[in-house]
């Protein structure tokens, strides 16, 4: 019975996941499970395969081999049903510059079939939580980087997803904005799954309960930030990251 519940709690399962671009192995035999309530940080140097892995988890890219299941549903065979549960913010270029923030949120909600009272409530929540009220009717092309980033996150949250996948979410935000976004995501992640790709170690320590460390497309460590730090007790998490990734090289 306990085992059964454990299985059910594994909301995201990646099995033998591989993705090749020609001869380049961007993701090489990656396996992990993520349960409800976990905030997972994907760490790795540039070119480690973080973005590719995120694209595999969001169905934007198809794996060369292996499979992803979300809430027990296979992402390949039940793609649309899986995508309904995911909110995704890629690293760059996911906003329509000619649209206003409100229009973009409305458009995203329409695409996801969110309307009526549900839309009004979710719209109010994301605008309030991500502090977008002052720019709600402004065109996206006129926004600062920080507001653009928050607009993207608001769109990813408009359907209140079970799984939130964010690529470098705090890039371009000032320290105050970073702090409030982290606090919000931490509370949102209490009963959801959040996967964050980042280079910022302070972010890993502040938010994530688990770290998946990638290098050259391979999963080299799946641990907690605390354990990562304890691997090299005399140093900080940044040094641990450096040592592990250079050891594998």
């Amino acid at each position, binding site marked *: 019975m306990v085992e059964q519940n454990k299985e059910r709690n594994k909301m995201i399962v990646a099995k033998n996941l591989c993705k090749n671009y020609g001869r380049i192995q961007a993701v090489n035999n990656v396996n992990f499970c993520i349960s409800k309530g976990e905030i997972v940080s994907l760490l790795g140097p540039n070119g480690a395969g973080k973005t590719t892995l995120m694209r595999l988890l969001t169905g934007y890219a198809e794996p060369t081999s292996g499979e992803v299941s979300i809430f027990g549903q296979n992402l390949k065979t039940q793609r649309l049903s899986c*995508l309904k549960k995911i909110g995704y913010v890629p690293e760059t270029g*996911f906003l329509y510059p000619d649209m206003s923030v409100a229009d973009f949120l409305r*458009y995203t909600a329409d695409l996801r079939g969110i309307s009526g009272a549900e839309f009004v409530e979710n719209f109010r929540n994301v605008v309030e939580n991500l502090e977008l009220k002052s720019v709600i009717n402004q065109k996206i092309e006129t926004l600062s980087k920080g507001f653009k980033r928050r607009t993207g996150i608001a769109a990813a949250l408009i359907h209140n997803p079970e799984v939130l996948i964010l690529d470098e979410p705090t890039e371009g935000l000032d320290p105050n904005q970073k702090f409030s976004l982290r606090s919000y995501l931490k509370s949102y992640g209490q009963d959801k799954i959040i996967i964050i790709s980042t280079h910022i170690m302070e972010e890993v320590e502040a938010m994530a309960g688990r770290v998946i460390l990638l290098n050259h497309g391979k999963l080299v460590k799946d641990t907690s930030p605390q354990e990562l730090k304890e691997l090299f007790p005399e140093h900080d998490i940044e040094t641990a990251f450096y040592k592990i990734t250079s050891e594998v090289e």
Partner: protein
Amino acid sequence: MTKQWQTIFKKETLAFFEGMQAWVILSAYIVLSMFITFFIGGFFSLNNAGLFSYFYFQPYILAFIIPAVTMRLWSEERKTGTLEFLLTQPIPLLSIVLGKFLSSWFMCLCMFLLSTPLWLGLNLDFEADNLNILSGYIGIILVAGSFCALGCLISSFCSSPAVSYLLSLGILLFFCMADFTSAFQKLHFSPIVENKLSSMLNLEYHYQDIITGQIGTDNIVFFVLIIILSLGLNTLSIEYKRN
């Protein structure tokens, strides 16, 4: 699926009309069409009861105008990176393809609407052959549909709207002028088969049938097949890029 293609359709149509693009295209179309109808098509010198001088040159005019409508539909999504946003939404790819195609076709309907005063004027001053004119409008709507579908397909291959325009223009002009008779002659078919095959694949042959009021099922099937084939290939091309 119904609601989702409507969302894409609405977004694309609004994008046309909110910027200058739609107004520039509509103006360019009507100026070009009227100039050709009156000065090259010989509007006053021909027996124009069926608005023949307007319809005759339409495929060539549309070959210049429609690439400007379709060029940004996919290429801009690729260029700005919004394709990743779109393809990670829970929508069937066909809904996106259909929404974009229908919005460009709708833009063409707006263009044709601008020419209807010519039809009304003809009815006031002359004896117009209204059935023939109706058939002519069906003809340009079908040509526009097939050109829009081809334009969308070409746009899906390009990451620059300018490249998409030039490539579409070239392909649509080739499509307007292509005559496969000599190609079939080299295959040594009998003259009847040769003739039949080359006319079957000739846009002008089908279009001329329609604007002269001899509209047949084969003419409609020809254009509908081009639309279906192009939209199918468009879906495959985006799917291929995703993988």
